[in-house]
């Protein structure tokens, strides 16, 4: 039995008996959102299985599985189809989830054409099995050796440039970000290291570079284990780079947050993201549901983490934070 079949068969078996990994459901996601993500993830997985069936039947010539990478669909939900995405080659779920945000897309059909190496496949003409779509702003990339990171940096840099001098044929909106995903092993390539260094160097000087790197760290590169903590140690203290971890199984360390704040008179959440759909919404819900009344938050105007002079216009200001603290204290006094 091939690996995809083993993974597939264990999924319904474990779900049916409630044998699930540790973790809590995300607090800030609507059921419809979760269902939408699940639908994309199922299609991604089913395409993996179909690609192997097609190969066995002599109808498919190329298989690149996405099993295990389905969680990246959440990045599509958190971004917009106009945020250009340079994808890891196993990120079918992100493309599928993004396709659901743009009418008239047919990701299953397009990806099946790529398995068949069909000349009708829209992004590579059957020459390659690769995520990609013009309508979804996903440039086709060969991502195994991290060659797409420098391109992502160029694209992100162009967003800032275009704000200063809007080109006639600009494609991306002014508030676009660029997203770039890669594996934990690819992060070691000199290409990746050079690119990330360039990103840090640029950002450190307050030159706009709206770029989100997503390292899909499964702890193994083909067959070579990645040392424990290697990615976090490498990237969590880089100048100009804001590092955070996401773990789909435990989006918020709820118990730890409640414990850490239990002796505080009041809690002010300062969120450098926008008001709706941001982490602070989930945090507010967490605290209020735990019975705390003395909670407030200040947020940014947009999810765009601005640098340079734009910083002051978007992010929570010192005055705003002070006012919020005074207001919270006023309630207490």
């Amino acid at each position: 039995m091939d690996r995809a079949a083993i993974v597939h068969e264990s999924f319904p078996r474990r779900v049916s008996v409630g044998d699930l990994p540790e973790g809590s459901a995300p607090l800030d996601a609507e059921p419809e959102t979760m269902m939408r993500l699940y639908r994309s993830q199922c299609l991604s997985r089913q395409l993996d299985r179909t690609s192997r069936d097609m190969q066995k039947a002599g109808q498919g010539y190329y298989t690149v599985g996405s099993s295990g990478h389905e969680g990246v669909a959440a990045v599509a939900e958190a971004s917009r189809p106009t945020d250009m995405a340079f994808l890891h080659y196993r990120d079918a779920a992100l493309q599928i989830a993004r396709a659901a945000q743009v009418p008239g897309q047919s990701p299953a059909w397009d990806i099946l054409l790529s398995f068949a190496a069909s000349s009708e496949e829209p992004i590579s003409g059957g020459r390659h099995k690769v995520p990609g779509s013009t309508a979804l702003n996903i440039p086709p990339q060969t991502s195994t050796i991290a060659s797409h990171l420098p391109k992502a940096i160029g694209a992100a840099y162009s967003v800032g440039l275009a704000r200063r001098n809007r080109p006639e044929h600009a494609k991306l909106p002014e508030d676009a970000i660029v997203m770039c995903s890669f594996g934990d092993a690819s992060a070691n390539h000199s290409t990746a290291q050079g690119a990330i260094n360039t990103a840090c160097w640029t950002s450190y000087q307050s030159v706009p570079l709206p770029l989100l790197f997503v390292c899909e760290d499964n702890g193994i590169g083909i067959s070579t284990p990645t040392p424990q903590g290697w990615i976090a140690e490498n990237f969590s203290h880089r100048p100009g780079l804001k590092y955070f971890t996401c773990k789909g199984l435990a989006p918020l360390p709820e118990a730890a947050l409640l414990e850490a704040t239990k002796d505080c008179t009041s809690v002010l959440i300062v969120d450098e993201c926008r008001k709706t759909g941001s982490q602070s919404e989930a945090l507010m819900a967490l605290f209020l549901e735990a019975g705390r009344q003395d909670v407030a938050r200040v947020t940014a105007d947009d999810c765009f983490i601005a640098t340079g002079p734009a910083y002051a216009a978007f992010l929570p200001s010192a005055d705003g934070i002070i006012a919020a603290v005074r207001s919270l204290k006023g309630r207490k006094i």
Partner: protein
Amino acid sequence: MKKTAVVICPGRGTYNKAELGYLQRHHANQPTLMTKFDAFRKTAGQTPISTLDGAARFSAGKHTRGDNASPLIYAASYFNAQAIRDEFDMLAVTGNSTGWYIALAVPPLEGRYPMRLPNHVAFHTHLQTPVAKDGQDLLGPKLFAMPDIPLVGGRGAVWSPKSCSPDELRQYTLGHQVTETYDFTLAAQTAAKAFAPDVFITTGPGTTLGGAVTQSLIELGWDGMKNGMKNKEDFQSRQSANPELISMGRDDQRHLVAHQ
């Protein structure tokens, strides 16, 4: 194993002379719902549907007028869709223009009748902006529910059960859908590509959508259609060997999918 089907509902202009009596002929077994439709019409001071359908002769002035044609088509198409036998697994519903309103009602049995466009004029253009506004004022959020089976609209968007927003469905239906181009080709092709059904069932009244659906599938290269067929005769012989497009408005095809 059940055969899978995508159901396609027709637009305006499909209830004509040949269709007079369509509801009587095919849906005499729906008296309860028909009575309900009729009662609603009477309350609104409009001619009951059964009276229109049962008229002695067809009157273009009466039967094709928007406020009569839309409910006739709606009822005929809706009853048709309800009559599809259980041996078909309905994967998705789409429609052309008026057919979109019918798609919204399939398969839930009641609740959204009638939705009509007041004038038979420049549908799906900006000229309809005031009509869209009227629709938004008159038709509240309660008329729109989460679909039970996927719907494919005129932008080729798929509205899936449990994962779309009824509010957004309403906004689209009473906004973009009314004032922007309704791309039926894209809707039919997206339904084909996303759901890959065994058969495409077009409901009545009329048979106007058969050609449009076929052309959409040929352009797509559906199941060998692009290379395998050169003309209408090729398509017809393919159909007689294994019907993939079934028109419920045709007496010789209706029995392939409908309850007797």
